[in-house]
């Protein structure tokens, strides 16, 4: 009787899970494998190329300076925007944790950039960055900070910097939410004990807040670096990869190869290369999660 019931329970459980599994396999598992497959082939043909030819895409890619340039751009973009996101995010979280006038309103407002469609964010910022009529140039000139209108998106170092800044603006609220949630779970008595022990507010931040945040920060860094690395929409819509290819990141290269140069196989190869690069932070993420869970945080 018990056995039958257990068996039935198990079946029910699997039944409930089945649609999820099916969709996972169909829409994620299969395409994942297929992308590896595609990367070993040429565009229009769907027949599997020989092994030798198969790696040809990768070999061509790794010998192509444009590929490495895109990789470098991706690293610069990721590192730049991630650093800004962290600084802004932690700072804002600390500010929103302590006493503040209309604090819940502030907490709500700060989240908006993150929830906005990237398309909207891009439109707004491109309008702000507009050389002639954009508000940013007007304000900077009026304040006397610059003499001439700045070309935010059409000049080489500027474009990457602008994109990094907009990326920070768009994604830092994620850091705020994660850090704020953790800050609120630090027991107040720790700070009280430290103040009795003689610690100044700065010492308290260093000795108590930062160590308590280390877990969250590790996770946030890993997650955001993965997501920023693979970000297509923001960079593509801001600059299209330009001027020239100076802001072309790997995701944009995938798109360009597959849909503009019509070399499907090469596009897939770039995507697979991206996946390979991401395996490191992937693995790191799981290691960190496991360590945090065993620590009981």
């Amino acid at each position, binding site marked *: 009787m018990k056995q039958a019931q257990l068996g039935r329970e198990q079946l029910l459980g699997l039944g409930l899970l089945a649609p999820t599994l099916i969709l996972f396999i169909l829409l994620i598992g299969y395409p994942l494998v297929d992308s590896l497959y595609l990367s070993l082939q040429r565009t229009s043909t769907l027949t599997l190329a020989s092994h030798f030819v198969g790696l040809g895409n990768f070999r061509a890619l790794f010998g192509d300076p444009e590929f490495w340039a895109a990789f470098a751009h991706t690293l610069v973009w990721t590192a730049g925007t991630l650093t800004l996101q962290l600084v802004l995010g932690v700072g804002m979280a600390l500010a929103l944790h302590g006493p503040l006038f209309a604090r819940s309103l502030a907490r709500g407002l700060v989240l908006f950039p993150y929830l906005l469609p990237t398309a909207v964010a891009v439109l707004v910022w491109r309008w702000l960055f507009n050389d002639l009529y954009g508000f940013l140039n007007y304000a900077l000139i009026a304040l006397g900070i610059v003499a001439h209108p700045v070309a935010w998106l059409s000049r080489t170092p500027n474009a990457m910097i602008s994109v990094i800044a907009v990326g920070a603006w768009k994604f830092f609220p994620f850091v705020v939410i994660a850090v704020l949630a953790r800050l609120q779970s630090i*027991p107040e*008595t*720790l700070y*009280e*004990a*430290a*103040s*009795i*022990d*003689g*610690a*100044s507010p700065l*010492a308290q931040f260093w*000795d*108590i807040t930062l*160590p*308590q945040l*280390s877990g969250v920060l590790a996770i946030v860094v890993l997650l955001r670096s993965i997501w920023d690395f693979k970000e297509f929409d923001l960079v593509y819509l801001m600059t299209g990869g330009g001027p020239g290819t100076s802001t072309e990141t790997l995701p944009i290269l995938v798109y360009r190869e597959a849909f503009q140069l019509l070399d499907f196989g090469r596009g897939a190869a770039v995507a697979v290369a991206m996946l390979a690069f991401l395996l490191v932070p992937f693995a790191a993420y799981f290691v960190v999660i496991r360590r945090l869970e065993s*620590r*009981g945080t």
Partner: protein
Amino acid sequence: MAAVQLEHLRKEFADGTIGTHDLSLQIEDGEFLTLLGPSGCGKTTTLRMIAGLEHPTGGSIFFGTRRVDHLAPAARNVAMVFQSYALYPHMTVRRNLEYPLRKRRLGPTERAARVHQTAALLKIDGLLDRRPRELSGGQQQRVALGRAMVRDPDVFLLDEPLSNLDAELRAHMRAELIQLHHALGRTMIYVTHDQMEAMTMSSRIAVLHQGRLQQLDRPDVVYHRPTNRFVAGFVGTPAMNFVAGETIPDRAGTRFRSALFEAQLPLEIEAKGKVLAGVRSEDLELVAGAGAARVAVVETAGHETLLWLDTAAGRIVSRTGPTARLRPGDLVSVAVKGEKLHLFDNATGVRLPVA
């Protein structure tokens, strides 16, 4: 030296609740003073004001002749043991103990010496390289104590430090704290709602209720001569029995009469009309057979027996020796010696006559 004086200390919180009303208290240097009372009585608020974690709305705090209520906690040279221990979770025991010394910029050799001395005294020297989460409750508590002791402060503040321990460990730690107090000779201010802790450990007890001081005395005085109905009912387990009655004059002096029993009062006590009489459970004398009380429940606890009696005056409890020959349903008569009665004013609850 390190006598602590509270003068007219008042705390009003932002939402309007009053923590303490006009609290004045003089704590002698080197004594173990317990702030005792039910939750919400203001004892923790008072402790936190002494520590500097709360700002008094009015009044002042002195350490000796030094006025401290404006000073930050770090400047007061107090040490505090929190109910939750508040050990720094990412630091080893050693670093936890060192922390206050680092903040006071002691050199490494001196720090190490003090840490070892304190650890040895508390018998935690084997745990110095562990993290707090690896320790048991009792061990964590000692580390919290150690962190307080390592600085050699003027005043120790302890906020219900034993409440998170199981009963056996609690009894053990009570004894250790008493020994520690003797060894260190420092002023200790202890907060608890457990009157057994208060009774066994304190030089004096300050009983607080709703933000006001009810009585400040040695434990035996608080127990045997409670100043009001609240203190009488709060201190002592099981709680004191209360019987309504009246005091009337007779040929021999004054007599107490109630629905349950009568007693002749000591000569100094005058007749005052209606009163509330308190009787400790161990002072009731029961005679089996007929009577105005019926046994409701018999609780045998090994070394003693508690008899819960239903009477015209309500339910009362009597404490007797281990041999209880009474059973539920038995009738008993209740008697009390007059000098064992505690009489309280019906309206104010103040002890009669006022000592």
